[in-house]
């Protein structure tokens, strides 16, 4: 299973701004980092096939189901109640509500939840199903530290399919296999983790400090970083 992009140029808005991509996303978890406004969402839409690239070709090999999660969860709401919303994703409402600590709110309209609660619900519904190709645009926004860690644990548990995480998060990451960066309008592959870490320009300060101290973490999840920091 893979997604190959050959000279793809994705445009935003009136076409006065673009991001170029050349590379292949294989099975595993890919982290794409970049500054705010660097084109992460534009690229996510193009990868999901929701917007046509200006040029180049996108080849999907063995991908039978795909999903894109927008940064703002309210756009995904298609249920009139929280329960209906869970059902619209094809997941068991009771399991999701228990996992997200939203029991007792199943009869509420999803838009009556706070954005943090709605994001929690949305991500839990999304990760409750298996997709061959899953794109998450800023999955950690609007979440508190506890929820970020829970989402990271759930994401780290994804062993099948291609998962691409677009984020400018600097604190909490799942275990990832590959690192990419958007820099100067181009998506660039940094390599497999941990080999990619020294090349990672958007690396969090903690990772940079660990590398400077000669302690290369196995991965970038909170547990891996703690292990590297405590290494003697």
């Amino acid at each position, binding site marked *: 299973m893979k997604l190959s992009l050959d000279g793809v140029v994705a445009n935003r808005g009136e076409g006065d701004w673009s991001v170029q991509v050349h590379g292949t996303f294989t099975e595993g978890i890919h982290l794409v980092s970049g500054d705010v406004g660097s084109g992460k969402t534009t690229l996510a*839409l193009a990868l*999901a096939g*929701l917007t046509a690239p200006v040029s180049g070709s996108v080849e999907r090999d063995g991908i039978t189901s795909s*999903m*894109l999660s*927008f940064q*703002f969860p*309210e*756009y*995904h*709401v*298609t*249920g*009139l109640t929280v329960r209906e919303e869970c059902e*619209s*994703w094809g997941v068991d409402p009771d399991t999701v509500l228990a996992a997200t600590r939203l029991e007792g709110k199943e009869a509420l*309209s*999803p*838009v009556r939840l706070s954005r943090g609660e709605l994001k929690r619900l949305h991500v839990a519904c999304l990760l409750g199903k298996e997709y061959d190709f899953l794109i998450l645009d800023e999955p950690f926004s609007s979440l508190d530290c506890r929820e970020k860690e829970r989402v990271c644990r759930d994401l780290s548990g994804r062993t099948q399919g291609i998962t691409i995480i677009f984020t400018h998060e600097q604190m909490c990451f799942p275990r990832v296999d590959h690192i990419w960066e958007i820099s100067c309008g181009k998506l660039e592959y940094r390599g497999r983790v941990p080999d990619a870490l020294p090349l990672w320009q958007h690396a969090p300060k903690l990772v940079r400090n660990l590398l400077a101290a000669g302690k290369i973490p196995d991965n970038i999840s909170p547990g891996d970083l703690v292990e590297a920091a405590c290494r003697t």
Partner: protein
Amino acid sequence: MQDVRLRTGVAVLLSAIAFLNLTGAAAAGIWCLVFARNLSLRRNARLFLSLAALVGFFAIVLAITGGDGVSYFIRMMVIVLIGAWVYSEQKKGEFLQLGVWLLGDKAGFDLGLVADMGMQAMDLLIADFEKIRLAEKLKQRPLSATGIVPGGIVLVNNALRRADDTAELLAVRGYCNGGLLCPVFKAPRRDVIASLLACCVAVIALIPVSEFFILYR
């Protein structure tokens, strides 16, 4: 057309004559074809077609109940065309300038501010609608009447939330009512000629041709 005063005046005048009769609608339509630059109908094709469908629905109802549905459809579509032209030429802050020029620093400023915020809200509503449509496509939901309701709730909810945020922001910045603004307008010769021709179009549409050509009688 760069001058918002001329653009708004022309739009009001042409909309009025287009609504009055078919001759006026035809004349206004021709004026639009000649002078309305930047008409982004292709870019907003979905919105334009939705409006056409809505107007078409009411035209059919009118025709069934004994009215002139065809005339209504043509006149309303010309008005939609004029609206699309005004919308595509509109720039941020123009209504505020127009309001102050027209009604002064108090009521004019407030009305202009409301109009500008309304235009901004419309842009955001369109962007929201596009995202909701994409999200529904991702969920592979079939198009249904009941499926529209949650999307509508999200649109209204987002609009109200933004309105709340804007109101709080204005209050925090000390806004009570009115404000100081020195409007600056630029009216090139082409805009003035187009406006004068719009006036001519209105006169032709309002006064029967026989009034001009006495021998015709």
